[in-house]
């Protein structure tokens, strides 16, 4: 009898380590698009001392002068009760942050940086080298924009911080006031980021369509004047037409201040009458209190804090203003990228 042996199963022995290695997928080649390199160069270039020192100095000057004058008028605030100290410091800081640190100064510096995104490269004759590298034109623009955005956000953080510190130091208020100030610092900083992002895209668009930097700077100046000064003239010269003909729709200052107050209200900010008066005068956000304002100011009781709160002039919703602003900038970004893709650039 022949013995029938069972079929031998072929067992392949693979060590566990090798099995694991087999499972591992080969490393994918790093996808290169040049964004990081352009971002890095722009970011570092904008951090030049020529730019940072004036920015920080100008950030301090306005709060310094403003606070010094107020100390002369209001007296020693440090000895008043804590709520009063908080109200005074937070409200004044908020007002000049909107007007100066996150306002005129920010617009000026953002404008100066953004108007040179593309135009300065074209004028210098260096754009041609960038375009001959394996990078998309849109990547060049976005890399530059991101470099500017991060740079300006960092600079603005320090600008606002220095402004608040200066205010608290001059008013000689307690540390608790500074801490409360830091809480309201957040909406102001968020508003600043919005402004940095929007100004960058608006003036960046100009740098694409226009070769001359001067034009960009002039447009920026015009925008600053329109936002911070034109509204007053409009409201004072033709008050009857302001609401009848919906001129507030064109009043950039009013719309921006609405957005700013929207940000602040999210953090439970309560304006004092002086704040309302100033905002009303410059931006029309509150009922204008021109002429005799003593009755409003008298109502501010140093011991009990705020007694009067006017309602905001809500001709339109701040969300509508915000959406319109963001839509315009996104539209300009897309249009700018399309134009840049088609643009002929020669040495």
């Amino acid at each position, binding site marked *: 009898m022949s013995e029938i042996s069972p079929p031998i199963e072929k067992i392949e022995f693979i060590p566990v380590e090798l099995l694991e290695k087999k499972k591992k997928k080969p490393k994918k080649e790093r996808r290169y698009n040049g964004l990081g390199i352009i971002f890095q160069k722009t970011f570092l270039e904008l951090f030049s001392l020529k730019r940072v020192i004036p920015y920080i100095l100008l950030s301090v000057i306005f709060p310094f002068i403003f606070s010094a004058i107020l100390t002369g008028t209001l007296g020693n605030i440090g000895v008043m009760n804590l709520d009063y100290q908080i109200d005074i410091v937070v409200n004044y800081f908020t007002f000049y942050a909107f007007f100066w640190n996150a306002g005129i100064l920010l617009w000026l510096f953002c404008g100066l940086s953004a108007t040179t995104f593309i135009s300065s490269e074209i004028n210098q*004759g260096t754009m041609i080298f960038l375009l001959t590298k394996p990078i998309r034109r849109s990547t060049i623009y976005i890399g530059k924009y991101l470099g500017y955005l991060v740079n300006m956000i960092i600079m603005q953080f320090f600008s606002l911080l220095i402004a608040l510190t200066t205010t608290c130091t001059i008013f000689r208020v307690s540390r608790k006031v500074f801490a409360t100030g830091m809480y309201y610092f957040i909406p102001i900083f968020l508003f600043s980021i919005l402004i940095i992002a929007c100004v960058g895209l608006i003036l960046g668009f100009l740098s694409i369509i226009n070769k001359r930097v001067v034009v960009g700077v002039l447009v920026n100046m015009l925008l600053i004047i329109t936002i911070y000064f034109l509204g007053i003239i409009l409201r004072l010269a033709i008050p009857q037409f302001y609401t009848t003909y919906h001129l507030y729709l064109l009043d950039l200052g009013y719309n921006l201040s609405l957005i700013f107050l929207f940000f602040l209200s999210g953090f439970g900010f309560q304006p004092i009458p002086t704040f309302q008066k100033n905002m009303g005068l410059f931006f029309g956000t509150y009922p204008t209190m021109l002429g005799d304002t003593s009755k409003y100011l008298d109502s501010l009781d140093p011991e009990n804090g705020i007694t009067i709160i006017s309602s905001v002039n809500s001709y339109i919703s701040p969300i509508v203003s915000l959406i319109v602003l963001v839509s315009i900038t996104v539209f300009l970004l897309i249009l700018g990228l399309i134009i840049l893709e088609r643009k002929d650039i020669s040495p």
Partner: protein
Amino acid sequence: MTYQENFPEKQQQFAAPPTIAEEEIEVDESIAIQTFGLKKYFGRGYNLVKAVDGINLEVKAGEIHGFLGPNGAGKTTTMLMLAGTLRPTAGKGFIFGKPIGTPAANKLLGVAIANPQFWKTMSAYKYLVYMGQLAGLRKSLAKERAKEFMHILEMTKHGHRLPVAFSTGMKAKLAVAQALMAHPKIAILDESTAGLDPESRFKLVNTIKELAQILNVSIFVSGHILTEIEKLVSRVTIIVKGKIGLTTTIREMRKEFSTGQFALECTNPQQVMQDLFNLGVTSQIFMDHNDVIIFQSEFIDYVYAQLPEILRRNGSSLMRFAPLEVTLEEVFINVISKRYGADFLFEEERLFEERLSRKARRGLKKWR
């Protein structure tokens, strides 16, 4: 009569450029540069300028290809279109099968332009590293390559300096270095030696040639100094008025455009020239400023047989006797004058004068 009936040639000029059928385009990935009816028009109406008017170009892989033409012929425009900085009005172009103006094509490309400009805050070394990184190199590799190229181009000492303060020659070298940093498959060099003194030009041309051989880079080069281009290139394309006049190799060009002239260099040239003339088989015989006898003959074998006797008779010794080689410069002028008339090279001046007289006439009409 309508305007179009009056000026049919204007109507033709302003007509939209015809598009190329997709079937006609056969893209070959092994060819360095291919263009199909590439056009670039600037302006509109009366200001329309046809800078490049439907050129079909082909640069083979591994060759050094010259691109020549008079001022305003469309050389730089073509090169910038290939580099992706100018968008073509019509037509298509490919770099190793990749459409021009795309990152994929630019990855295979290195470009150096005439009179390059640099960032004011970046040293030469940093500039090269930055350019290398933009071309897709890792930072460490870009640094190595930057050092390597600075050494090759004898710029190591100047690495820390700002390129904006460099001499024209140094700037040109730096531009060439950044073009070759990522070892591209093809380099486009647009008048890279413009503005250099002869010595620097000679050095740079030799370096480019050596680098092209070492790195196996195809080079598409344009320039005005034809003797230099002649040394560098193996094939040449002549562009005139935005259209291709001629594409040929240097050897073919010498054959095609040979004048049938011979050069004889010897001692006692005056007597030898007299005897050659007396043979009666030579024509257009003259002596150039280097005392070389230049002549034409349809019976060159007879001249060759008689020459030893002539030399012996005059006690003259032979230094050189060879067919006169045609230079690229002569071909260039020949092509242009054959196709566009002898006055073409002075056309710019003629057009300027025409414009002036037109203005004067218009002024006169207004005055009347």
